[in-house]
């Protein structure tokens, strides 16, 4: 099955202690601050499912939080396990595309 370029990843790597980097299939580069990713976790624990309102309070997430392991989910998303024990966030490529700093 084919997927649109915007939602597939060509390469992904750890750029520095708190920056995740990737190249999309259309060769655009993306970077994410991992602490910001943790604060923007889209899981049901962090975001109210019906209202879409954020339940997580960003200030309660320590600046020292880091991923432990990042795994692909299907072809459209990745799951991140964080050092604070939080592991329910599935970040779709669509969401990551929005969150990235070019």
């Amino acid at each position, binding site marked *: *099955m*084919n*997927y*649109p370029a915007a939602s597939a990843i060509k390469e992904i790597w750890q750029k520095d202690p708190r920056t995740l980097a990737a190249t999309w299939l259309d060769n655009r580069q993306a970077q994410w601050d991992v602490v910001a990713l943790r604060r923007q976790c889209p899981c049901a624990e962090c975001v109210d499912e019906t209202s879409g309102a954020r339940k997580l309070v960003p200030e309660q997430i320590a600046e020292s939080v880091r991923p432990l392991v990042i*795994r692909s989910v299907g072809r*459209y998303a990745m799951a991140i396990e964080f050092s604070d024990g939080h592991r329910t966030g599935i970040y779709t490529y669509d969401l990551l595309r929005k969150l990235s700093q070019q």
Partner: protein
Amino acid sequence: MSLLTRIFKKSPNPLPPPPPPREEAPKARPTAKTAGQHKPEQLGGQALSGVRQIIAVASGKGGVGKSTSAVNLAYCLIALGYKVGLLDADIYGPSLAIMTGVGNPEEMQGALVVPPIHQGIKMISVAMFASASSAQILRGPMAGNMIKQFLTNVAWGELDYLLIDYPPGTGDIQLTISQTASLAGAIMITSPQEIALADVRKAIAMFGTLKVPVLGIIETMSYFICDSCDKKHFIFTQGGGAKLAAEFALPLLGQIPLAAEITASSDEGKPLSLHRTSSPAAQAYRAAAEQCLSELGRLSQQNTAALGSFTLHWKQ
């Protein structure tokens, strides 16, 4: 008893029942939340295993020329030397038999219905199984189930491309089809008018949610070539297709002229792309078919460059 069997019972040639439904995993309903979190399961392994790529011909909007385009594209693909199948999935407005004059299925191969072949194209349409009036009363889940069976209980055999002529709209039936078949791509059909665009946008969004790549846009009834001067006359608002293409960064795969001969040839069951290949409309369809294929090819190539599964351990 399955729906297809029940409908068969009413038809002149009763056929043995299709196999019992497979055990289905809990269904991933494509709500905004779950869509994209589950890959749609590929059902109908046996029926669809020989089909290389399944392509949706869809719009969201009714009456814009989906069926006409699906039929003409199918004949173009056959002419290019591919093995082609065509599924008319429009329960409420079956038209394939009228447009092509294809006959009814007459055989079974094991538990699968053997599709009739018209000029090399394997064709299945709702109209082959039920009178138009009984098809009209099928609603919601029943209709969805029936379409599923057209995909999974038909001996499609070896095909390069199976085109699915979508019913208008973006409801449950369209979702069911898109989830039952693992679609390689969707071709969006639109007319140039602004009023068509809103529905086409919805359909593009639906395929986006399901991660089905949209190959591009074919604009129908784009311009009129009159007999007296060979010029293109733009009758409707110009540029609806181009506008959509720009908006979604999609290729405009083709612009099909408004041609009385398209309607006439459809009504007579003699599709232009089969009977009058040199007409401007047939040529436009031919060019569009080639564009679709190159777009499919491009997507497949990209696909191989994409990272499959990965695990990244963070260095602390």
